[in-house]
């Protein structure tokens, strides 16, 4: 699979994890193609954040609600539980503080969808083992010195972090390098070996948002000022 078709495939799968008529924040939304797909197919309400100025500008010009900004700095402005879903597609490995980002995703969204390339894939392991050099693959196509991907991790690593953070994995989809799709949780022992890319639907344990109904609107936050 080339990079574009792999992203498209990723988006198709993300769509299957989302219910209709929901509010969504797409982190790293580019020029808004995933948002367009989700609005069209699921009647979603979307917001996006994009670091690249030109891409953000294009998305805004298409009519999407997009903030030109940096997810690592700008997520704090969103209230708790602002969105039904927060999507982080193929960028967790490029974040300075992946753990903080993960907890932010689940603070501002009821659910988070995270997808990433699995560093435990056999091709990567094989490359490192045989050549003794940092692997370069279709999903991780950069050399070590100019890669934006600064935190490499495998599915096992990710599941361990989720469990440490009391995050529930509601659904997990794996993709082989040939684009074959399977359920990670129900799969065989060698899943970490064969999964090329992984998509997770996450939520917090026992997280019940407080909803306060006023005459005018529903406040959907963990804290409200009652005057």
């Amino acid at each position, binding site marked *: 699979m080339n990079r574009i078709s792999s992203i498209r495939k990723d988006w198709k799968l993300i769509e299957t994890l989302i219910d209709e008529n929901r509010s969504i924040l797409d982190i790293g939304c580019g020029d808004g193609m995933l948002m367009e797909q989700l609005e069209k197919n699921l009647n979603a309400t979307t917001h996006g954040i994009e670091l690249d100025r030109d891409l953000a500008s294009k998305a*805004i010009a298409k009519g999407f609600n*997009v903030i030109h*900004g940096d997810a690592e700095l700008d997520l704090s402005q969103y209230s708790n539980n602002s969105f039904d879903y927060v999507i982080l597609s193929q960028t967790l490995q490029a974040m300075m503080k992946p753990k903080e980002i993960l907890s932010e995703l689940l603070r501002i969204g009821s659910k988070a969808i995270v997808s990433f390339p699995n560093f435990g894939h056999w091709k990567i392991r094989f490359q490192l083992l045989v050549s003794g050099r940092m692997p370069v693959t279709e999903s991780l196509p950069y050399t070590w010195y100019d890669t934006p991907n600064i935190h490499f991790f495998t599915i096992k690593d990710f599941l361990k972090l989720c469990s440490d953070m009391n995050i529930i994995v509601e659904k997990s989809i794996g993709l082989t390098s040939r684009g074959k799709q399977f359920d990670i949780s129900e799969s065989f022992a060698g899943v970490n070996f064969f999964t090329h890319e992984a998509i997770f639907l996450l939520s917090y344990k026992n997280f019940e948002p407080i909803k306060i109904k006023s005459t005018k609107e529903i406040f959907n936050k963990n804290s409200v000022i009652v005057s």
Partner: protein
Amino acid sequence: MSDIKIKTDNTLECSVAIINNANFSLESGEKIKNLKIAFKTFGKLNSKKTNAILVCHALTGDQYVTGHNPITGKDGWWSRMVGPNKPIDTNKFFVICSNVIGGCAGSTGPKEINEENKSIYGGDFPSVTIKDMVKAQSILIDGLNITKLFSVVGGSMGAMQALQWSIDFPEKISNIIHIAGALKHSAQNIAFHEVGRQAIMSDPVWKKGRYFNYNERPERGLSVARMIAHITYLSEDAMHRKFGRKLQSRDIISFGFDADFQVESYLRYQGKSFVDRFDANSYLYLTRAMDYFDYDEKFKRKIEFSQNPNNHIKYLIVSFSSDWLFPTQESKIIVNDLNNLSRKVSFLEIETDKGHDSFLLDEPQLDNLINGFLLSNFEEINE
């Protein structure tokens, strides 16, 4: 209820809305009996009246947003943005631009005659605020029988007005485009304005704002005020790129106080040409209105606990990387507040070295952004 009459002013080449017995009450508590609003419209209002855009002008702007300006004899101040097939396309949209109250291009202001005592207001004109300007604009919009504006667009002081619209009349607008603005006028901004005002008021010709009685104008004071302000609209890089230390029409320095440098000559020209088109008292009143603008602590509450529904409003907030008068971080405060309330907000910082004035200059990214934002949202509404 007062009647609104719309007349054509041939000298000013614009329309004037006359509201006699308006008893227009200002934020200060004072009242203006008869109100006059000079305005221009471009394009056609569609049958459903859904394509009206109000453009709010900045401190020294006027209703001549595009087309011919009879005061300067030049093209309007945003001709490159507004017009047929321009980013704000008047083939598609009905664009309204009115002179703010307190201004000097035909709307009620210090230069106009106070009908109550038949003399020019001058320094007796009551203090006006951004809120007052917007309230007057809303009377005009009502008078034009438009229930809901598609968009309110403005840069700098115009951005303040756009923001004020979203606070005071959210039910009357669909979206705002807020360019190079802020929730407040900062201490530094007030300081620069104060220097400008002092320049005007210390001109002996000013005579406590009664200069018109002597058929004079405080030209020196006003031009110095303009020179100071003009520096704040540029960036250091842009100034260096444009002028550097280049000399003006000479090869060697004069060892005197002539305009040796091009930058001096440029500023003197800016100051000089400004006094031909602007009233010194207006400059005092309008800079004051900007100084008084402050939603720093209040904006979020105003939006969250608005009397009228405002969930539907789309906000486009734009800043420029080299604008040090209304820097990006000020725009981001607005964006943060709106996102915190889960509002429909978009934000872009445009990379440019042209400073605060960028919104008036050639910035293709701004053009594409505004054009796309307006068209895509217009389609959404009119589906």
